[in-house]
């Protein structure tokens, strides 16, 4: 085969646009994309309404308690798992994937538990396993008494790596 043809073939291949026999037109692609956006909008609307309904039906504000996990110190601490007990009863355990850990390190907060409790004082116990900057496994535990009032009870559980501060687990009423 002549070299020139080979050369042209290669150059053409670099910028080749796939040719289709039974064509899929841009209008078809655009049209269906717009319809997909529309249905996403509809389903999001159902989802938001359903979320509010679930909250009202399953976790009314006068009994609702939500626990959030966040990270302090961001990059140094590799959180592996968390275990939570509320009034002596295990209510949540979670093993973190890499993506979840990254989301926490980037400043996100994980709602790890939502449930119902009576108004009054409650005892929260948290245990965590993770690795610090030195790679050593670290077990931490902390407890916190919080008072549930008429409104929803929101407690943030803030976890830090070893040596980042005096207490590894801090609690904040939100």
């Amino acid at each position, binding site marked *: *085969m002549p070299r020139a043809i*080979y*050369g042209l073939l290669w150059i053409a291949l670099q910028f080749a646009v796939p040719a289709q026999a039974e064509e*899929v037109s841009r209008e078809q692609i655009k049209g269906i*994309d717009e319809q997909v*956006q529309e249905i996403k909008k509809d389903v999001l609307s*159902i989802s938001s309404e359903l979320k509010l309904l679930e909250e009202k039906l399953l976790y009314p504000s*006068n009994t609702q308690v939500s626990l959030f996990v966040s990270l302090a110190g961001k990059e140094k601490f590799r959180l592996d798992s968390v275990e939570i007990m509320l009034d002596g009863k295990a209510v949540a355990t979670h093993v973190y994937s890499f993506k979840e850990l990254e989301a926490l390190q980037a400043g996100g*907060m*994980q709602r790890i538990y939502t449930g119902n409790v009576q108004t009054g004082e409650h005892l929260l116990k948290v245990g965590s396993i993770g690795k610090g900057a030195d790679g050593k496994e670290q077990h931490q535990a902390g407890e916190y008494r919080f008072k549930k009032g008429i409104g929803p009870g929101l407690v943030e559980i803030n976890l830090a790596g070893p040596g980042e501060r005096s207490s590894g687990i801090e609690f904040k009423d939100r």
Partner: protein
Amino acid sequence: MYGKTFCLAALLLVSGTPPASATPSTELKDPFFGEVLYYAHQHRYFDAVSRLDAELAQYHGVDEPLLDSLNFHINQAEFSVGDFELGYRMHQRAGRAISAVIEGNVPAAVRNEAIYRLARLLFQTQDYVNALHAIERIRGELPAGMENEIAFVKGQIYLANGRFGDAERIFAALEGQNGYRGFAAYNRGVSLFAQGQDARGAEAMDSAGSVPGSERETEAIRDKANLVMGSRLLEKGEAQLAGKYLERVRLEGPFSNRALLGAGWADVKREDYRHALVPWSLLFKRNVTDPSVQEALLGVPHAYAQLGLYGKSALLYGSALEKIGGELDKLDASIDSIKQGRFLQALVREEGRKDKEWVIRLRELPQTPETFYLMELMASNDFQAMLQNYLDLEELRLRLVSWGTDYAAYNDIIELRRRYYEPLLPSIDAQFRKLDSVIRLRMEQRERLDNKLKKMLVAPQPEFLATSRERVAKERIAGMEARLKGNRADADTLHRIERLKGVIQWDIATNYQARLTEAFDHLAALDKDIAALQETYASFVRTRQAATQSYQGYDEQIRRLGINTDNALATVNTLMARQGHLLEVMAVNELARRRQKLEEYQVQARFAMAENYDRASKARSQEETSRLDAGQKTPAKVPATGQPEPAKAKEAP
């Protein structure tokens, strides 16, 4: 024409700057917004948008939004909606959300950031003209830390609109900025090439191709710049220089196959066939589904033929034919598999939700032959957008199916609560009404006492604070006086009565202040009890209300949600079928295109193999004749196949 194609290709292939960070700029005050970010950072945009929509609706619905904890992050939240919607490929809604911020009463920096985001969105949706109109509306103060990002997108928009001179100036200014050097130089090179300033363009592209750094993006832009330079030079016939650039491309990067193929062709152009075999032999061993590798299957024997090694060339053409035959069978199997719906099944497998590289990895799995040839197609914008839509639709379908079963569970919960509370509530209500009337009476009494005491502070009324003993005594004295009125009482008795009255009056008057203080103390103590009573009362009312609300007023909403869910599910199924069909058509078309190309290679290889066998035989017979002529009568070895053996002496390249 070439310039335009080149530009668009370059635009499509160059990575943009990373999207603006959704990390909160201040400490998180609202945990629910933190939860939204948690999902957004994992690219779970449906969950992020859905939660943020609900949060914003609640924020705008409350009487005093300034007291809501979301108020600390409201600007970021309003922006984030657009960002997350964009991440969820809802361009229309994202555009509306961002436009709403632009039209609001916001500071210049916030407004400019919104305009920038809108322009970026329009650019990403290939609406270049409107992107240009938008980006040129930026006036005044720019959002802190985003100056370079804005300038870079502006340059890309100018480039897409053919304003190459403006784009060039922007990219030139950005080249000195940290993190932009390679990208800016590359895009400046593209701008200059488009203006016909090849020498300056080459200089810029050369700079992009030698930018230092080991980050993934830097390595990619470096490879890309070198590949573009190599291709251009090869096209111009400057093979020596082209080879220099193509050899700079990393051997393991995404552009390596194309660079190796080009490097081989650059050598061939210089008639250095021996050297061409080096990159092509590397390619020869790579994944045979790659177009560059397939071309190298023919390139290697072509080089051997040019070196006069016809026998080796013929054998390699034979081997290429075998491989091409195998690949054609694979392509046929892939087309059949796609037509049977297996491609779509593979795309929505469970693993896909855990690994975003899943579609690429599919190629490695023997059980998914339909995906082997789709790498190039998968890299195209249209196919990616459609594929993502299909995956999004599948996710929506799973959610809708799950919600459909949830409604039945909610109805069960409501019915159980109704059965429990309804028989209890009438008697509880009757008791409550009795207690309520008593409580109201006591509350009125307390109000009266409070009013009296307040009046006494202004106009003292000692008599009101007389003790019961004093009142009884005064009544007895008054009785005595009444009895004595008709009779003649002696003066001593009357005097004694007056004295007793005086004593009582004295006590009442002199103890007044102390008694008033004591009365206020008692009222305060009473208030504490009343507060506790009111709390119990309110708690009862709330509990009573919660009991009713736990089963009343949901029926209509759940019924409506159920209907909406069913309708949405039907639409999703229809759209999935249509979107799936388009994906299949595109995939089959791509495979057919690749099949056609392979068939062309097959024809070329057959001819070339025959030609090279002929040449090898001819060379052998010429050699034999020469030997005979020289008096050497050594017989030629004929292989069992009957084909002449290639000339061994010349085989090693």
